């Protein structure tokens, strides 16, 4: 059986045009998907049952026991950390935030180590963004800054930018100019009309230089700015100013580099300068398929997009203090629930050491690096394959993901709801 208009739950593009062929409880082929989508839908290495570690021995346990143990660990903890949430649907994220409030826990999502700094900059100066549909139909200048979509978002260029014909761009490949800024010559840089190779950590200076040029103050700049010829920046500024509609996309090359959220603030302010000349927008290239959703859900319930600390009985947010890496670095939390993420692979070693030293419980369909650090893991259905739920695309558009095969696995929501009900009962809430 072929199912059309299937949503891919891998990256923030949330491509919704996949055609998936199903035989029984297996996906046997995927059309329109990129390499990442094909691997995701065709993957067959799920953890079969909940597993629990007692000292150095792993054993299989029943789902009810695993759920009860999870609730008890969280109730026993003085400062639990609930981390991840970007690899699950909005309904599960909602339960997570309510659970954190009851427990007086810290709840944080993966944007803490991806676009958290982007959100901090947006909180300072706003976000002149737009939907990907606007980009596809209108943008004749595209900037990828510190971002390599060919590797990280493989269909971004074919669905929305370089290769995507739009309402006002009938031959997009010839009509759109593509500018790439990076510290190395990536595959994306190879197809750029202008590639600016910036020195590591010099993005802030380069953004400031471009702002000066757009403001008409370029003559005061030195001839070479952090390894980039001033003439190239004049050329790039002209391309941007003469655009009918420009769209800048930025990645972790800005958020993780020296300057962090100040880089993003400067990029937003460059876009503000460009809007004195034409229409220009800026948007983050979100990684996890529902990391944007985790920011939305956290915000609509608590007022804050990530790193929310309920220890005071109210929501408190202070990146650098209530962010997961800092909490783990300080050895502060005494239990951790990981949902839809893999901090074992993506956090610095010292954070992993603390996760290994406390009761860490993971809810995830697959064995990953965090499995080896955990005391308990509960396998669940994969949203978009054998569970459905709501996700937010990288431009903030909510999309309902579909279930294409039947399963015996519970969804994230079902497992979390059971844990939540036990916590409610025990706390008398």
């Amino acid at each position: 059986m072929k199912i059309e208009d299937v949503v891919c739950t891998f990256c923030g593009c949330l491509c919704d045009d996949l055609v998936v062929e199903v035989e029984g409880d297996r996906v046997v082929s995927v059309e329109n998907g990129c390499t990442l989508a094909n691997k995701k839908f065709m993957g067959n290495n799920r953890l079969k049952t909940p597993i629990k570690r007692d000292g150095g021995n792993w054993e299989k346990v029943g789902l009810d026991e695993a759920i009860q143990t999870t609730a008890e660990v969280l109730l026993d903890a003085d400062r639990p950390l609930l981390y991840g949430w970007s690899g699950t649907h909005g309904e599960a994220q909602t339960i997570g935030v309510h659970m954190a409030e009851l427990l007086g826990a810290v709840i944080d999502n993966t944007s803490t180590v991806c676009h958290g700094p982007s959100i901090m900059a947006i909180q300072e100066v706003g976000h002149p963004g737009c939907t990907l549909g606007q980009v596809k139909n209108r943008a004749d200048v595209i900037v990828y800054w510190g971002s390599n979509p060919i590797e990280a978002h493989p269909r971004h260029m074919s669905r929305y930018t370089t290769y995507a014909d739009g309402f006002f761009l009938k031959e997009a490949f010839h009509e759109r100019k593509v500018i790439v800024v990076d510290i190395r010559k990536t595959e994306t840089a190879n197809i750029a009309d202008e590639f600016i190779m910036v020195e590591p950590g010099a993005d802030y200076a380069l953004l400031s230089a471009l702002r000066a040029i757009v403001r008409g103050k370029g003559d005061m700049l030195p001839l070479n700015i952090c390894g980039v010829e001033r003439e190239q920046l004049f050329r790039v500024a002209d391309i941007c100013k003469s655009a009918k509609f420009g769209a800048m996309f930025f990645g972790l090359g800005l958020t993780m580099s020296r300057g962090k959220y100040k880089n993003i603030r400067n990029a937003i302010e460059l876009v503000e300068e460009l809007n004195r000349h034409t229409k220009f927008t800026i948007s983050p290239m979100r990684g996890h398929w529902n990391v944007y959703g985790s920011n939305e859900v956290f915000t609509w319930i608590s007022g804050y997009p990530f790193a929310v600390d309920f220890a005071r009985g109210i929501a408190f947010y202070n990146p650098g203090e209530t962010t997961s890496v800092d909490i783990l670095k300080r050895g502060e939390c005494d239990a951790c629930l990981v949902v839809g993420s893999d901090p074992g692979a993506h956090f610095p070693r010292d954070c992993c050491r603390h996760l290994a030293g406390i009761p860490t419980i993971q809810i995830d369909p697959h064995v990953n690096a965090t499995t080896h650090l955990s005391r308990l893991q509960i396998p669940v259905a994969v949203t978009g394959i054998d569970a459905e739920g709501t996700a937010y695309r990288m431009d903030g558009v909510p999309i309902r993901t579909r279930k294409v095969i039947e399963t015996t696995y519970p969804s994230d929501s079902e497992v979390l709801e059971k844990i939540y009900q036990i916590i409610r009962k025990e706390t008398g809430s």
Partner: protein
Amino acid sequence: MRFLLNTGRTITQGSNVEHKNSEAYREEASTCRMNPVDMMELDIEERASIVVRSAHGEIVMQAIPDAGQARGEVFVCLGPYANHIVSPETHCTGMPDFKATVVDIEPTTEGVWPIWKLMESVGGCRYED
């Protein structure tokens, strides 16, 4: 010889992200892309083992040449190998310096550890599928 370690996504890393115990993931996550001239200066053959050492620790990886890489800079896809030597300092932003770790690199005869061994080295316990 001193380098700046940069990390980021690769399509091979993404393709194997749900197969973290696989050989394909281990190989990609432990591959260090270097400028070919830097490799020549250090007398490192393609796919030879190197030890990558930061102020925060050291890890064995394998080197491959990448002409798109500037001299003095190396790239490793994000994952447990690179993060083994990244500092947890976030400068009050919540975000570690994933793209700016200063490292020393030299050839070695040691082999690359599997991921479970990395996790066991910080107190974890191997789970086999």
